[in-house]
């Protein structure tokens, strides 16, 4: 993550620039496009939340993001 929108859902959950997203919904992700696909899939499946595994300076943790409705 290079930038976190200050008013976005991610900032609300404590994401910081420099954090690395490791997994989305239980699947490893290696690039920003894979993240977009994974989140898009969850959205299409009608999920309200998607579990994201994040690595930050303090270690690794899981954060459940509520999916905004497009």
């Amino acid at each position, binding site marked *: 993550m290079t930038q976190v929108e200050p008013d976005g859902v991610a900032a609300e959950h404590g994401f910081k620039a420099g954090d690395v997203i490791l*997994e989305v919904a*239980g699947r490893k992700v290696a690039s920003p496009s894979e993240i977009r696909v994974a989140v898009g899939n969850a959205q299409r499946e009608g999920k*309200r939340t998607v*579990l994201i*595994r994040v690595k930050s300076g303090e*270690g690794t*943790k899981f954060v*459940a993001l509520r999916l905004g409705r497009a």
Partner: protein
Amino acid sequence: MSDTPARKLRLLSPRHLGLLAGVAGLGVVGFLAVPEVAPSFKLPALSSSVAYAQNAQRPVGFADIVEQVKPAVISVRVKMDGGPRLMGFDALPTPRATPGSPMDRFFRRSPDSGVPNIPGVPDDPRRQAPGRNLVTGQGSGFFISADGYAVTNNHVVDKAETVEVGTDDGKTYSAKVIGTDPRTDVALIKVDGRDDFPHVRFADKPPRIGDWVLAVGNPFGLGGTVTAGIVSARGRDIGAGPYDDFIQIDAPVNRGNSGGPTFDVDGGVIGVNTAIYSPSGGSVGIAFAIPAETVKSVISQLKDKGAVSRGWIGVQIQPVTADIADSLGLKGAQGALVAEPQANGPAVKAGIQAGDVITAVNGTPVRDARDLARQIGAMSPGTTVRLTVLQKGQEKTISVALGELPNEREARATPESREPQSGLALPRLGLTLAPASRSRAAVARAWS
């Protein structure tokens, strides 16, 4: 300044009177209710108010219990090295006070800070010989055996160079520290030389919310102070440690009460007074005691081997919030989510992965992340446990041979540092809490 103590003590007395009035009020209510259900013409013998008064239930005092238990309660005085004298007024050890924080300001007791300067109480330990800055501190404790074992808080004695015990009959003894457990803030000390110390026992069963309790201790150096209240809540997590499970009581507890006992009305110890929440520095009727079951198991280990060993599975866990439960397809926000298993830890070896939710230990449901830490920590290293685990949507039972929680390292079978979304009541209120000991530290402060 000379009238400060008197003013402070007066401030405390209305609280006390208020309690008595409350008790008396119960009697009055009973008295007033009688005429409604029993009209006087049916019960002529009760028609005079004198007869009513004789039949009304009187408030019950606690003097009989106090007489039994108070001799076993001690004051614990410690001397510790406060560091080089250069530090001057800041030399009081205040490990949890961040510079500039309200807590820090609180510790820099200015003459008008409202902290009573009670005559006869060595309040300013910094007036000492040059060179080393010896700091004194005071707490409370209680004998649990005739041969002089006594319980107090870890934070009362952990930095002590010498420990002195003052008994209810005015005698002073030197004591040695047998063992301390920082994680629960329990310490076991021992006074040698007598085998007839008055002592108390732990209550057989946990108290219920609403039960009467008595706190006995040494607030502000006022030894043998008895206060009464009720159990206000149980199972409080105040952010003091990984195994927080405090009993909240509303008996007035102040600095110096730390390590002192809370009794039930049978004279059994139900808890060890450890912290208070206070916006003012004095008691506002919110005190926290370590439950007797915890204290019992900790002191038996301290007595046997001077330290406490805890089971350890080697996972970093985080709370299962409603959103996380939803994202995993769980029905309720229960269990503990494995954020990261530690390399080569017992959990990894047994096949536990990041993202697993541990829902039960030996069939006992895991309420939340702290509950898992408590359950595992209460078991001995070497024990094999059956964990019910939700792994990639499938429920499994995984057997894990417990390792030993490393003593100096951060607890890692314990919840990860507090999450903003963890929903724990007290931290969300923006308060911090600290031990209620006389010198080092104190008292909880709140800010928004």
